[in-house]
């Protein structure tokens, strides 16, 4: 049986009208407030209300019967909700809606109103039936939750605005510092280059040039880091290849051939400067000393990885000069002191012609 035909359910009981009618008794006695209105009369007045309705609203039956339901509305009752109820009545449709209503004493309650037309045999609307349930607690709880949510939202908004402002200030500061670092490195390089040119003593000039190359190596490391997508990693193999090609390119010597066979070797950027300085010593040793006095030759850079350790070897076919471990030169000291922080070992081998320097660099742990 469809819900639409449920009126048969009350029909199949054999009952008397009047006092013995169990449905009328149920409506009279239920704790759910109920009214019946008659749309055939002017202004659709209430023709019946039960005790629960009187109890809920505080009005006596005499106050109620004969009046339109709107006497329960007050100043804070939502106009849009009232309009919806009117539209439902006009369209002869049922509706359920939460509405703020007023008791006789002026106090308010939230009314979960259910209103529905009662049709006769002909299908015409005979009555409207309405039930009212006090849901003030539920509505108040919802309002409290909504108010708390709004308070939290506004607090979140305020904190977010504060954080965005702080981030903006920090970003500005970072750009300023970044700009200063770059400019200072550029200026230091320029000052050293200007000084080198002004020195007549060949020995001193060579020493200062060596120092200038070290500063240049640091500048190159910094430039590569700030231009990289990921500032936490530094590819030492690509750096070595670029440094070698710059040094050879700048020397204007066309008799040095550079051969590179490299895989990326990434280290954490905190080790970038130290490894950059080490590679600068090794490469300038190969190019400036191994292939000294315009000696033709080649420099090979080979980078391989085996999962735990990366190997970067730099080989020249020059005069086979090995940086003397016992020498007191700063270059050797730099390599010796700077390599342990990244766990790198540096081995020097004399070849039949030339020198091979092998750096073994621990692979960067992928998670950190």
């Amino acid at each position, binding site marked *: 049986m469809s819900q639409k035909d449920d009126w048969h359910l009350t029909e199949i009981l054999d009952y008397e009208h009047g006092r013995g009618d169990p449905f009328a008794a149920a409506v009279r006695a239920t704790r759910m407030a109920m009214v019946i209105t008659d749309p055939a009369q002017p202004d659709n007045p209430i023709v019946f209300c039960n005790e629960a309705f009187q109890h809920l609203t505080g009005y006596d039956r005499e106050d109620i019967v004969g009046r339109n339901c709107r006497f329960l509305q007050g100043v804070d009752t939502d106009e849009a909700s009232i309009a919806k109820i009117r539209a439902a009545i006009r369209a002869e449709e049922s509706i359920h809606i939460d509405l703020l209503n007023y008791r006789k004493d002026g106090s308010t309650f939230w009314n979960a109103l259910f209103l529905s037309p009662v049709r006769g045999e002909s299908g015409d609307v005979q009555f409207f039936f309405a039930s009212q349930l006090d849901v003030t607690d539920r509505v108040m709880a919802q309002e409290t939750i909504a108010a708390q949510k709004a308070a939290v939202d506004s607090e979140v908004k305020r904190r977010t605005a504060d954080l965005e402002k702080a981030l903006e200030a920090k970003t500005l500061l970072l750009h300023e510092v970044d700009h200063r670092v770059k400019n200072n*490195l*550029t200026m230091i*390089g320029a000052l050293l*280059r*200007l000084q080198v040119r002004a020195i007549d003593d060949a020995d001193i000039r060579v020493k200062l040039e060596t120092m200038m190359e070290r500063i*240049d190596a640091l500048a190159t490391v910094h430039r590569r880091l700030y*231009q990289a997508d990921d500032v936490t990693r530094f590819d030492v193999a690509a750096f070595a290849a670029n440094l070698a090609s710059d040094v050879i390119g700048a020397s*204007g010597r066309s008799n040095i051939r550079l051969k590179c066979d490299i895989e990326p070797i990434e280290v954490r950027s905190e080790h970038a400067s130290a490894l950059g300085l080490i590679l600068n010593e090794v490469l300038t040793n190969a190019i400036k000393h191994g292939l000294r006095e315009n000696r033709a030759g080649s420099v090979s850079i080979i980078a391989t990885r085996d999962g735990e350790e990366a190997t970067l070897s730099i080989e020249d076919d020059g005069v086979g000069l090995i940086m003397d471990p016992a020498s007191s030169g700063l270059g050797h000291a730099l390599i010796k002191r700077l390599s342990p922080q990244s766990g790198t070992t540096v081995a020097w081998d004399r070849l039949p012609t030339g020198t091979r320097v092998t750096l073994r660099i621990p692979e960067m742990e992928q998670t950190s």
Partner: protein
Amino acid sequence: MTPSPPAFKALQVLIVEDEPLLAMDVEMMVEEAGHSVVGEAASLYEVEAMETEPAPDLALVDMQLARGTNGLDVSKLIQDRWPSAVIVFVTANPKKIPDDFSGAHGVIAKPFSRSGFLSALNYLGEGIADPPPASSQPSSFVAAPAVREIWSVRSQMDR
């Protein structure tokens, strides 16, 4: 310095840089590489005030210039005045250069090393004298997309 490869041509170089020490340094490196400096300017106004002759072959232009002027405007002015000049930005903020370089040809990022700067200069010298350059493109120089297409032909060799 050792004699340079056959394609060498002494370039007329314009330097637009507002930091006097760096301008001096760049001038000396340009001359060291066998080229000559035709003019130096610290702002757009100084470039405007320059004689139109001789025309520079290469302009090295800083992005942030004196008197509130910038390298992009200088680049436009150079393109109007000396259409054949190759324009290279020299800047610590390469990310501020538009993707298409606004008609300029490339960038050398600061801080540069002496060897990086000189190899970029060699590469540019070869490219201007007899394009495309014989050397491969050094990492210190980044060519504008339009230039890269024309010049990168030979640079894929044995890096």
